[in-house]
């Protein structure tokens, strides 16, 4: 196995563990890091939503306004949409073989980052805004 690999790749390339594109590992790594962050963040979120089953507007707002909730929600949005952007990009690259692939990858990236910003601004509006609660 090592012999075959050394024929196809230089010793330096094997030592550095990089493919011809040189950048694939960063995406793979970011997908794992966001996945690890999402384990506690999503478990917290699902548990909190369950705890607020049937809650009215004011109790949800007062929960969202707490600094801990707002901070965790912002972190959740960042990791959810970064992880989504990376995962959806891989799905598109695997299944879309037409010229639409390029446009789809860009649309997914812009859409995910845009949605993350929208969500974060909403959380901050609730946390810092006046209004009821």
């Amino acid at each position, binding site marked *: 196995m090592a012999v075959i690999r050394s024929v196809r790749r230089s010793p330096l390339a094997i030592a550095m563990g990089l493919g011809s594109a040189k950048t694939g590992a960063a995406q793979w790594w970011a997908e*794992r890091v966001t*996945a*690890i962050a*999402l*384990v506690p963040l*999503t*478990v917290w979120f*699902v548990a909190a*939503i*369950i*705890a*607020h*089953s*049937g809650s009215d*507007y004011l109790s*949800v*707002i007062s929960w*969202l306004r707490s600094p801990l909730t707002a901070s965790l*929600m912002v972190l959740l*949005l960042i990791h*959810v*949409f970064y992880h*989504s952007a990376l*995962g*959806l990009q891989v*799905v598109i690259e695997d299944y879309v073989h037409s010229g639409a692939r390029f446009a789809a990858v860009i649309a997914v990236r812009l859409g*995910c980052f845009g*949605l993350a910003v*929208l*969500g974060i*601004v*909403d*959380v901050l*509006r*609730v946390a810092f*805004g006046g*209004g*009821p609660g």
Partner: protein
Amino acid sequence: MDSDPTVHIDPAARPRPLSPNIQIYRPQLTSVLSIANRITGVILSLGAVGLVIWLGAASAGPRAFGAVRGIVGSWGGQIVLAGCTFAYFLHLCGGLRHLAWDTVHGFELRTIYISGWAVVAASIGLTLAAWLASLFVAG
């Protein structure tokens, strides 16, 4: 047979068979869970759009929040939410299995099937537990 060998055909232009050939590929736990992890990932991405809509309604005020709450609380909304809950737990458990594989553990065929069925059982169990807890809290 249908092409003149003397005519140059660009190899990249010919339709190539895709692997795996899903028309003749027998579904197995391993392959089903593999594609399920992708499908649930796409579903959860759509669910995340719902999360942003819900947060937008919360920041817009009680009327908008009430409207979204009404949609989520409807039969259709509850079915979609239940689907998202199962998709979440399947993606979570499948994702933890992937993270374990990333540390080069659990690649024995027997271990792969044990962890695969554990993912299925845990996803169903956690989904039921989450909804029972939610119904208990809501009263």
